[in-house]
């Protein structure tokens, strides 16, 4: 009998604590599939952030470290500098990476640290109950922007891929989404490519995943996917921003 679909070895059997309609579980699976396909599980160390995915170590079946808020890229740098043979990835949300951890992500990228960042952007602070994130959309209502995000007061949302792509060093930067099957397929391809480039010690690799937060957006899951497509995607274009020279022909390797 041929197995067509199974739980990746890189995921544990623990049920996740994520809300209905949240895409964290799906993104976990894509990361786990990529690690399995490349045969990296037994030499991978993941870094969990502070935020909704703070307990990611309960769901990934591999060595993990849990970081202080925003510092995951510093931990990853420490691990990778001490043990370049290990495969290291951080899994961070928008508050963790683009607010409190802005210095660490920018400098890790600029040094070209050879680890992979999975950046989950759902335009809100989830774990703390729906406050404004650096990525919150203009006019978006959150618990700390009750009249909607006023860009004249708190500025426009931060586009991390574009910001990091302005640096000369980082090698692979791509934004993907996971609200429809075709986008999920593309997201998987980008995540796998990021890990492949890391294993080849090529470059800093960064994949931003546009994600939904039905609970804190106050929308049913299907409506949330529509909001992502109509509101977030025009501001956060889904595309590759950077890839290393000569990486393309090996993409299917």
């Amino acid at each position: 009998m041929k197995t067509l679909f199974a739980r990746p070895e890189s995921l544990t059997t623990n049920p996740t604590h994520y809300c209905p309609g949240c895409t964290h579980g799906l993104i976990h699976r894509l990361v786990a599939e990529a690690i399995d396909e490349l045969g990296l599980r037994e030499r991978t160390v993941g870094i969990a952030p502070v935020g909704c995915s703070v307990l990611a170590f309960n769901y990934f079946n591999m060595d993990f470290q849990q970081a202080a808020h925003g510092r995951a890229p510093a931990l990853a740098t420490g691990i990778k500098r001490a043990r370049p043979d290990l495969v290291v990835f951080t899994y961070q949300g928008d508050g963790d990476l683009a607010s409190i951890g802005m210095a660490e992500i920018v400098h890790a990228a600029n040094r070209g640290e050879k680890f992979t960042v999975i950046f989950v952007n759902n335009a809100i602070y989830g774990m703390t109950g729906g406050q404004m994130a650096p990525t919150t959309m203009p006019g978006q209502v959150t618990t700390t922007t009750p009249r909607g995000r006023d860009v004249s007061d708190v500025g426009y949302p931060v586009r991390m891929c574009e910001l990091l792509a302005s640096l000369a060093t980082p090698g692979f930067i791509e934004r993907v989404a996971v609200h429809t099957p075709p986008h999920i397929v593309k997201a998987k391809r980008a995540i796998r490519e990021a890990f492949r480039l890391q294993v080849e010690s090529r470059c800093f690799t960064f994949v931003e995943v546009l994600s939904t937060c039905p609970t804190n957006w106050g929308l049913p899951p299907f409506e949330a996917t529509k909001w992502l497509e109509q509101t977030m995607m025009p501001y956060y274009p889904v595309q590759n921003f950077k890839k290393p020279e000569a990486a393309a022909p090996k993409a299917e390797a």
Partner: protein
Amino acid sequence: MAKVLMKGNEAIAESAIRAGGLVYFCYPLTPQSEVAEYLARRMPEVKGAYLQAESEVAVINMVYGAAGAGARAWTTSSSPGISLMTEGLSYIAAAELPAVVVNIVRAGPGLGGILPSQGDYRQATKGGGHGDYRCLVLAPASVQEAVDIMPLAFDRADRYRNPVIVIGDGMIGQMMEPVEFKEWNFPPLPVKDWATTGCRGRKPNLVNSLHLDPLVEEQLNETLARKYEKMCREEVRFEEYRTDRPYRVLLTAYGTTARVCKTAIQMLEKEGISAALMRPISLYPFPSEKTRELGRKAEFLLSVEMSMGQMVDDVRCAMGCEKPVSFFGRSGGIVPSPEEVVKAVKSHLGGGK
């Protein structure tokens, strides 16, 4: 091995390398930047890892990551930088990771000044960061002692799986003295089977300080408390000076200030005033029993510090109401002179003699 003349900061760097401290992260800050400069040159020669980070906040978290992956990771900084690292120290202590942090203390508070100070005693010994944690704190009084303490610091960090702070005032970092690098033989250390090195052939390891179940969190605090109790039993270190004969006053001082006190004691002797010194080498655990034992033999105690009076609290705590405990200190980056210490002793003896 022959003695070589070295600046304190460079000697600390070389000693750390010889002790296997081969993963080092730093951020420049006076008066300890020579450690980084020395290691930027030296670390590639020994195939170690050296990185100048974007901030002390990043540094301490790089130390966390590397230590979590089983490395002998360490850093150096000075007072304002150590303040930025205290959050990370709390996480490192909570995750039970070994790490060595050298603080070449400068004058504070705030941006302060770049001259020697002992104003970080409380920060080092009482916590600094949040939560119930302690660091083993070792205070050298010479460049040679700083060299000798580094291997001990790495060994104890690994043995206790806890951060160790080596605290030297700016004088220790900046002055040059002849030093000898000795061979140290510590008992074998346990294998780091908890480190995140890839889960081949075993269950996944987790380096973590998050415990949402209060009973689990309390259990961690119990475990840490037992560890600190063990330190208090086994890691107390001190030096006695002129305690082998009767004395009227017991001085307590550490680091550079202790050396000033030794000169003051010799000056007092010439004037017929007998004084002795208890120099803590471990600031945490503080040598409370030894302080009490020696203090009982004196008319009073005088804590001499480069601060407005921090260690004096521990001296008072050790003595209770048994003997009067006084304080003399200079701050702002000023090292007290032996004459000033002599004067302070005399004033407490009651006007002139």
